């Protein structure tokens, strides 16, 4: 698969993903930074996937299911990617396009650092996607407060995924709706 600006195949289950970040100082520059992201197949898996955990814990309209906020998350029970099919919040399951957009927006929070973590050069807890939900103390200040605790299913799911050995049971448990 040939990497391209913000283009990669997630649905096909490719293991490496590339995110091209155009050099900001030179408009029109073709310089690219290539990111190897954590396994997109584990992200998009319908059972034990990591994507549904982000949807469940981060994706409400008043949090990351909101176009005005970073790390935008689309989901069945939250914000929908504009579509021609008439799919609205609370209706059809999260679409492949939405899953793919979520994956990219999660990587895009810190492309370089995510790359380092995926390549084993840094620890998952160096990433904002781990520090923010942990909140102040174990993590860092987060407008949405503490929404994950070290050792809980959500943390196990996310950390395992970033380390390349996803814990599907933890992800399934963390994605559970009441």
């Amino acid at each position: 698969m040939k990497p391209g600006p913000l283009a990669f195949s997630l649905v096909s289950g490719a293991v490496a993903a590339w995110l091209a970040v155009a050099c900001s100082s030179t408009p029109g520059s073709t310089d690219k930074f290539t990111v190897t992201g954590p396994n997109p197949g584990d992200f998009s898996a319908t059972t034990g996937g990591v994507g549904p955990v982000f949807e469940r814990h981060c994706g409400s309209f008043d949090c990351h299911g909101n176009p005005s906020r970073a790390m935008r998350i689309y989901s069945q029970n939250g914000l929908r990617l504009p579509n021609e099919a008439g799919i609205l919040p609370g209706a059809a399951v999260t679409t492949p396009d939405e899953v793919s957009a979520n994956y990219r927006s999660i990587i895009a929070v810190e492309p370089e650092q995510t790359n380092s973590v995926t390549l084993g050069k840094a620890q998952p807890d160096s990433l904002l996607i781990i520090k923010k939900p942990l909140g102040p103390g174990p993590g860092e200040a987060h407008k949405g407060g503490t929404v994950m605790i070290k050792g809980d299913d959500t943390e196990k799911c996310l950390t395992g995924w970033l380390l390349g050995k996803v814990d599907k049971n933890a992800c399934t448990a963390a994605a559970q709706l009441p």
Partner: protein
Amino acid sequence: MSSFSRFAGVLAIATFAACGMDPVHDGAVAAQGKEVTGVPIGEFHRAGQPCVVCHEEHGPASNSVFSIAGTVFAGPNGTVGVEGATIQMTDSKNSKFEKATNCVGNFFVKPSEWDPAFPILVRVAKGAAKRSMKSPIGREPSCGNCHARIIDENNQYGSMPHVYLFAGDDPAGPSKNCPVNPDLGL
């Protein structure tokens, strides 16, 4: 203004509030429009609106702050309030609280009654009728900031229709001895 931009406005409150001046919040308050003639300012007013835009520390109703508030309508179409529906809420520390709607379908919770640790889960019930919200509410205290009275091309991907309990009318019918008309007629 679309209710989605109102929503975005509300979320900006915390950022601006410290400066003592908040044009975004002022806009969100103004967007709710004037009081309706014949409906006194109080528990029956502004059914369906995002109550806590005003009923918060920096809003025009700062002397009656609510931790959660909203309105339950009978069906998906029309705007007849449901009296005596119960809002059953559970917070992230498993603390539970229930509040009943008044005769226009409005309900409100004061922090002295219940000050939940978000995220919270909600369910609406009356008799055998029940409707649960599957996903949690992250931090938004007004049902009406996500459940808009009007859904159109501006907000359809980021808002839900108004909160309702029945497929059509409330089998018990609208309240008969309500001081104001429980049908907004919208």
